[in-house]
């Protein structure tokens, strides 16, 4: 029995990990782009970007998943996601990436706005162009500043992956819960918690290590 459960849970956890990794892969760069939009000097772009961030952060991810998946089909009559489990998975990734990119964008914005004007001016006077100043001077300092809030958000993401089942993407809790119905046992569900704990534990250690690594200077 244990082996059956473990196999099923591992399959579900694999799906959870996929969601986790793909979300990070998309949301980390997209969040930076959104943060530029929300800091833009071009007012319409800034207003629109901040409105999107407000809506995405102000509504439940679960609601966004449902709307993203069913919305196009029910409103426009076309299922843009394609059929079957692959279509559902794509919808999950898109919704997760957008949702997390908006959260990340605010973290980036806080980090970027916290860098003093003198740093930009020093770079400029030394003859660096804007992208050199951003990538060589500003961004490395931003990374150090945002590690603590980012690690918080990323650990939340680990647990949020469980929301994917609402549109039928079978992650670990789905498999755990299945055993209640099929075999009348609850321990597999508890067991899923162990996976989450271990994974977030590993992430906590990893972020602790990165923070320590970046402690070679302070402002």
């Amino acid at each position: 029995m244990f082996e059956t459960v473990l196999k099923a849970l591992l399959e579900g956890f694999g799906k959870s990990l996929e969601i986790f990794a793909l979300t990070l892969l998309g949301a980390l760069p997209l969040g930076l782009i959104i943060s530029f939009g929300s800091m833009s000097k071009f007012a319409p772009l800034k207003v629109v970007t901040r409105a999107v961030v407000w809506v995405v952060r102000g509504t439940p991810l679960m609601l966004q998943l449902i709307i993203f998946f069913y919305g196009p089909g029910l409103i426009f009559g076309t299922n843009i996601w394609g059929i079957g489990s692959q279509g559902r998975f794509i919808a999950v990734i898109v919704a997760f990436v957008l949702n997390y990119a908006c959260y990340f964008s605010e973290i980036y914005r806080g980090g970027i706005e916290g860098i003093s004007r003198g740093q930009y001016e020093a770079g400029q006077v030394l003859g660096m162009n804007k992208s050199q100043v951003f990538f060589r001077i500003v961004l490395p300092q931003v990374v150090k500043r945002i590690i603590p809030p980012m690690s918080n958000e990323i650990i939340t993401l680990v647990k949020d992956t469980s929301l994917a089942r609402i549109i039928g993407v079978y992650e670990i809790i789905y498999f755990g819960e299945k055993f209640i119905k099929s075999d009348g046992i609850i321990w597999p569900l508890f067991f899923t918690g162990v996976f989450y704990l271990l994974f977030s534990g590993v992430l906590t250690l990893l972020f602790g290590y990165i923070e320590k690594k970046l402690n070679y200077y302070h402002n």
Partner: protein
Amino acid sequence: MTVLEIKDLRKSFGKNEVLKGISFKVEKGEAVAIIGSSGSGKSTLLRCATLLETADDGSICYKGKYLLKDKVYAEKDELKEICSSFGLVFQNFNLFPHMSVMQNIIEAPMLVKGISREDAEARARDLLSQMGLSDKENAYPCELSGGQQQRVAIARALALDPDVLFFDEPTSALDPELTGEVLAVIKRLAEADMTMVIVTHEMAFARDVAEKVIFMDSGVIAEEGDPKELFYHPKTDRLKAFLHNANI
């Protein structure tokens, strides 16, 4: 040779006119001190000359090339070349905290001028020894005193071999005992005929080191000339009052 010539420079922030037509020249090898009370426009003048602020009118000319003329700034390529003629040392140092002293100094020469790492490092070591900081090349700015940080900032600016180096109140953020070490470095540069424009509140330093002193008052140059003449025989009441308050 005239390294910098500024003519009738004007700058307003909103309705507040900060620079009301500033004109002066800096010759090669000259150390010029700009004095005046807070709000007289000294820092704005330096920021306009170094392109950190855009001036409204007038001209700025480095070695015969116009950075600004008739309200028009030079084109991008030319701008880049002109900007390599000057360096600026900030009041708050503005070192890059995530980089070691060595990285701070070699970053721009390598990135902007395309100098090889070996050459940039050799030059940096030479400058650090001039600054008395040879043992600090691997230190980070947070591990240094304010005076040491400012000396690194001076080395960083010198590494690009500017024709003229601006100092914006280089010792105002320092404790009195650290001020001396930074002033000593600037004095040595002056003795080596580095062309410099120094905004400062250190009156004795301006008097002893500068070849020319400019006294600014509410956006205009109220008086300028030989430091001894200016300090011991001020012509305007405004300068007399300023020097009196500055206790010199």
